[in-house]
């Protein structure tokens, strides 16, 4: 929310400006509902009363363009002000470069706002010039590395104008900065998926990269999720990649009990069961044991989920045991 500007002593109300005396202001509640408005912020009401007036008259003028700036300053989330401003920019043939600079300033002050970023995007589309977008979004992400709007804008610019070249480097820096930055991990997936592709080599490289990061901090939801995402592109799945399975078993042996590790081991067991490739480590018994550990000790808050999973595996366990018995009888 922007400053109401009450402290701004040099401010002249629109109602006191001679160049505006031909316009009749339109208060918000004119129309169906008559309500007495006692302004908390006179400046706000004054600006928006005049804004409504020019909007209603569809006035196309420099003074209206200037008025939208005041209206934006008071409330950058007002979508109608921005729409009207774009209509004016088109109608008046305003220099879009200076508009680009202007919206950059607004973004710096209100980086979490749909309207400002959308305005930016329309300008870049009109100009067909994305040269400043990576820097702009980088600055916003330095301030808030998870700013959804900035990420959306960055992805759009990268995709629309093919700006992939140095993106992996950018993502790597963010992950190094904060290994739990889920947005950065998502961006990593976006870049590989849309640009580098999931060749065997890339899959293996991404696995190694992720395992390194997990080694550094084990209890990291984002990295474990990314690992699953990469393995979607590995024909061997989560259970068939020896690098991954031995990494996990090694962690387990070294007493790591991060819920994410245990959950991943359960996924390995689950897949092994489904593929009928169970082993002494990865089978229904192990999965049951892990579910019980999670429900009872390491992830109690989600015990209902783990109990549900546990029941699921108990059925497989029975099948496995029956099969063992049947095999023995056959022998």
């Amino acid at each position, binding site marked *: 929310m922007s400053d109401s500007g009450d402290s701004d002593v040099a401010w002249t109300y629109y109602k006191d400006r001679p160049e505006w005396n031909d316009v009749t202001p339109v208060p918000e509640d004119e129309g*169906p509902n008559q309500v007495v408005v006692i302004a908390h912020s006179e400046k706000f009401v004054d600006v*928006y009363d005049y804004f409504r007036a020019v909007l*209603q008259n569809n006035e196309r003028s420099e003074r209206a363009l200037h008025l939208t700036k005041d209206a934006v300053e008071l409330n950058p989330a007002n*979508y*109608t002000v921005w729409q009207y401003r774009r209509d004016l920019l088109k109608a008046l043939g305003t220099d879009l470069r200076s508009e680009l600079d202007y919206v950059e300033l607004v973004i710096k002050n209100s980086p979490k706002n749909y309207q400002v970023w*959308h305005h930016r995007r329309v300008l870049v589309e009109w100009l067909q010039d994305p040269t400043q977008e990576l820097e702009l979004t980088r600055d916003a992400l330095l301030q808030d590395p998870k700013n959804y709007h900035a*990420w959306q804008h960055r992805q759009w610019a990268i995709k629309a104008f093919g700006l992939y070249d140095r993106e992996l480097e950018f993502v790597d820096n963010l992950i190094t900065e904060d290994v739990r930055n889920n947005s950065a991990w998502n961006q990593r997936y976006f870049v590989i998926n849309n640009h580098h592709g999931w060749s065997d080599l890339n899959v293996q490289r991404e696995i190694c990269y992720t395992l390194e990061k997990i080694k550094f901090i084990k209890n990291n939801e984002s990295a474990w999720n990314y690992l699953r995402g990469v393995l*979607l592109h590995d024909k061997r799945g989560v259970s068939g990649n020896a690098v991954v399975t031995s990494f996990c078993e090694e962690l387990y042996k070294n007493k790591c009990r991060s819920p994410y590790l245990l959950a991943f081991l359960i996924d390995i067991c689950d897949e092994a069961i489904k593929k009928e490739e169970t082993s002494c480590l990865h089978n229904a018994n192990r999965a049951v044991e892990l579910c019980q550990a999670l429900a009872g000790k390491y992830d109690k808050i989600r015990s209902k989920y783990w109990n549900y999973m546990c029941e699921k595996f108990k059925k497989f366990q029975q099948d496995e045991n029956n099969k063992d018995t049947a095999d023995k009888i056959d022998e």
Partner: protein
Amino acid sequence: MDFATKDVNLKPDRPTTLLIEKHSDYLAKYGTNKDDYEYCMTEYLRMSGIYWSLTAMELMGQSHRMPKEEIISFISSCQNKENGGISASFPHDPHILYTLSAVQVLTMYDRLDAIDVDGVVEYIKGLQQEDGSFFGDKWGETDTRFTFCAVMCLSLLHRLDAINVDKAVQFVLSCMNFDGGFGSKPGSESHAGLIYCCVGTLSICKKLDVLKVDDLAWWLCERQLPSGGLNGRPEKLPDLCYSWWVMSSLTMLNRIHWVDNAKLEEFILACQDAETGGFSDRPGDIPDPFHTLFGLAGLSLLGNSDLIKPVNPTYCMPQETINRLKLEPQILKKV
């Protein structure tokens, strides 16, 4: 090993019971404080404000405290005569977000006669794009939120046939991520609010079966923090509105019991303002109608209070309204 988690601590003096009368007073008063700076500031989303307040009041059985006729004539005045869309407030431009809010309010009042329904249908139809997605308005921002708005709005009007539903569903599925969740556009990060929009769209279109249900439900469960509250993405602070977005999604997936309901309820109750009434995003913050609705709706899903009516998880409207409209959004079978 680093187990640091971003979370809040619930204070011992937090509210632990539902202060229903306070909330009713808070919302009844909210609309009348038109001299309030905050009220002026929220003009651009007035229509949604009315939806949040009215739905919250309906859930508490207190909607008679809202100025019904004034609201209905306000909505009529916000419909654009040329394109049929509805704006947040007069004379703003129409937008799909406020068109939905207006239709939700009018269906709760059973007063769709107050607007030109065909106009609304044409407006929404005109926003659908070749790839199945929807613009939010004529300026061409696309987002899975707008798909949900379009589909929900048309289903409330029993006019889903006006758009290409298969393509709308295809677009939503193109936004599914490797973690089973959904973002705003293809490739955008999974986010609980947008997951609600996508799961809601699939629920209305009866296509929930295409989801990777257990992956998605687990991701949603992972949003619960030790305080009991839910966040919207990994490593973010809990926020009351996610109680709605996560829990409604889990309800549609019929896995609401996977979250620790008792701890969540404690968190929601702690977000009440014991002085002014209303709920805020986190304990101790300033309340607003948006969080007040999602606090009450979240409690409704948890189902432990006789004071709150059942809410429909897909529409975020009273179940009785959805029943009256004979709508049957899909809910997966219990596991």
